[in-house]
């Protein structure tokens, strides 16, 4: 049962996390643009540029094409942003336990990650544009492609924690409290590194960024599933992009780099909370730099059939090897084999 106190807490958390997700998400987009610009020997826009862009989009006309199914076309961006924000409620923020951590685990987060993508598919098909239809079709295929390696990462980490006797291995709180690196032996650490590599590749795909941005592909599809979007609808998709960046980086941090400053250095309670929060944001920026900014500057776009091959064949195999190493790491010592 949910009491009135829990209900009030859920509503309050939702409001706070919405503001936090939007502000930090936009800052992340600004930092990403700045980092990418510096790597290309450009000055780049100011970090607050995404805020300026958002304000500009909100005063621009919100064109609904003649061919579009208006209600789906307008609803998709709103639900895409809202569903991205809700995922944040299930993820730890620094040393703060996730507000809805007791009401859903990592498996749920995996499923919730599909909702923003499905909204983009629905919005693309509802646009009534050939470019957007192709973009929506590619988004769907990309989603099918990266779900498999993502599932391997989640299952492998949870399985290793369960093998070490940790309760509720799919709970993000448990995963963050027992980092895979402290549970696993040498073989397991190699397996964990392979899974980290897979997760680093899933992140740009989930965010529709280079090299997995075939669904938008400005140079061939003129923006793909976003081609007909403008004004406030495009603003919502752009906000959603920022929030999703924070979500994906927070998932990587929770699974692979969950340490906090307060667990390493003794600090007063209030200071520890702020220090952990800043440290968390630093880790998020680090993850974003390596799996989004650096990759999109260094690589070209994959074709859609290459995207599927990369995820189902190459990263699927790397993930399975990682899983096998984690299994061997647990099974061999139990069988008396010293590694």
């Amino acid at each position, binding site marked *: 049962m*949910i009491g009135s106190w829990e209900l009030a807490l*859920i509503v309050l958390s939702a409001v706070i996390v919405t503001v936090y997700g939007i502000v930090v998400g936009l800052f992340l987009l600004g930092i990403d643009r700045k980092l990418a610009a510096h790597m290309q020997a450009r000055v780049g826009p100011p970090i607050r540029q995404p805020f300026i862009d958002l304000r500009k989009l909100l005063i621009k006309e*919100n064109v609904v094409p003649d061919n579009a199914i208006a209600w789906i076309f307008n609803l998709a961006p709103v639900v895409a942003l809202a569903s991205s924000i809700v995922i944040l409620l299930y993820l730890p923020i620094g040393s703060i336990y996730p507000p809805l951590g007791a009401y859903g685990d990592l498996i749920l987060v995996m499923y919730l990650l599909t909702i923003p993508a499905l909204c983009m598919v629905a919005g693309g098909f509802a646009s009534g544009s*050939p470019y957007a239809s192709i973009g929506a079709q590619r988004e769907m295929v990309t989603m099918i492609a990266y779900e498999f390696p993502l599932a391997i990462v989640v299952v492998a980490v949870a399985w290793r924690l369960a093998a070490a006797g940790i309760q509720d291995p799919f709970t993000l709180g448990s995963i963050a409290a027992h980092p895979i690196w402290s549970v696993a032996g040498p073989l397991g650490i190699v397996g964990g590194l392979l899974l980290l590599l897979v997760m680093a590749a899933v992140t740009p795909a989930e965010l529709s960024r280079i090299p997995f941005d075939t669904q938008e592909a400005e140079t061939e599809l003129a923006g793909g599933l976003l081609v007909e979007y403008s004004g406030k609808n495009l603003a919502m998709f752009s906000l959603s992009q920022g929030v999703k960046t924070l979500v994906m980086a927070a998932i990587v941090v929770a699974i692979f780099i969950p340490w906090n400053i307060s667990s390493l250095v003794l600090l007063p309670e209030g200071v520890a909370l702020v220090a952990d929060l800043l440290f968390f944001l630093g880790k998020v920026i680090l993850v974003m730099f390596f799996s989004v900014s650096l990759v999109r500057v260094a690589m070209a776009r994959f074709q859609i059939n290459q995207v599927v091959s990369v995820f189902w064949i190459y990263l699927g195999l790397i993930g399975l090897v990682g899983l096998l190493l984690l299994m061997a790491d647990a099974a061999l010592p139990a069988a008396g084999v010293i590694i």
Partner: protein
Amino acid sequence: MDLIASLYTGSGYWNPLVWLIAIVVVVVIVYLIWSRGESGYKKGTLQTTPFISGNPEPEKSGVHIPGGNLYWGYTEALKGYYSRLVPLHTGRLNDYLLWYLGVTAIIMVVVVVTA
């Protein structure tokens, strides 16, 4: 059965009602932000025709993506698998029954040997 309790599967858990409350609250906030934006546009002008890089709009049927092409990219990448699998679907019941019997026999052998 308590419909508003969390569902525990043995390995994981989730509470649909809590998710629903959270998404409703967030949708309301997002809608408030969305509604602050400009709604107007020039209906019935070139603005509302689909953007096809300045080219005239082709026939709807010409640019429609049929169901068979929806997963293009996926089937293209895994064509080595599909090119072998699709011809096996002959549409003849006799073939399917033979496959069923064959696979059942293999599974029985594996089960008996491993037991």
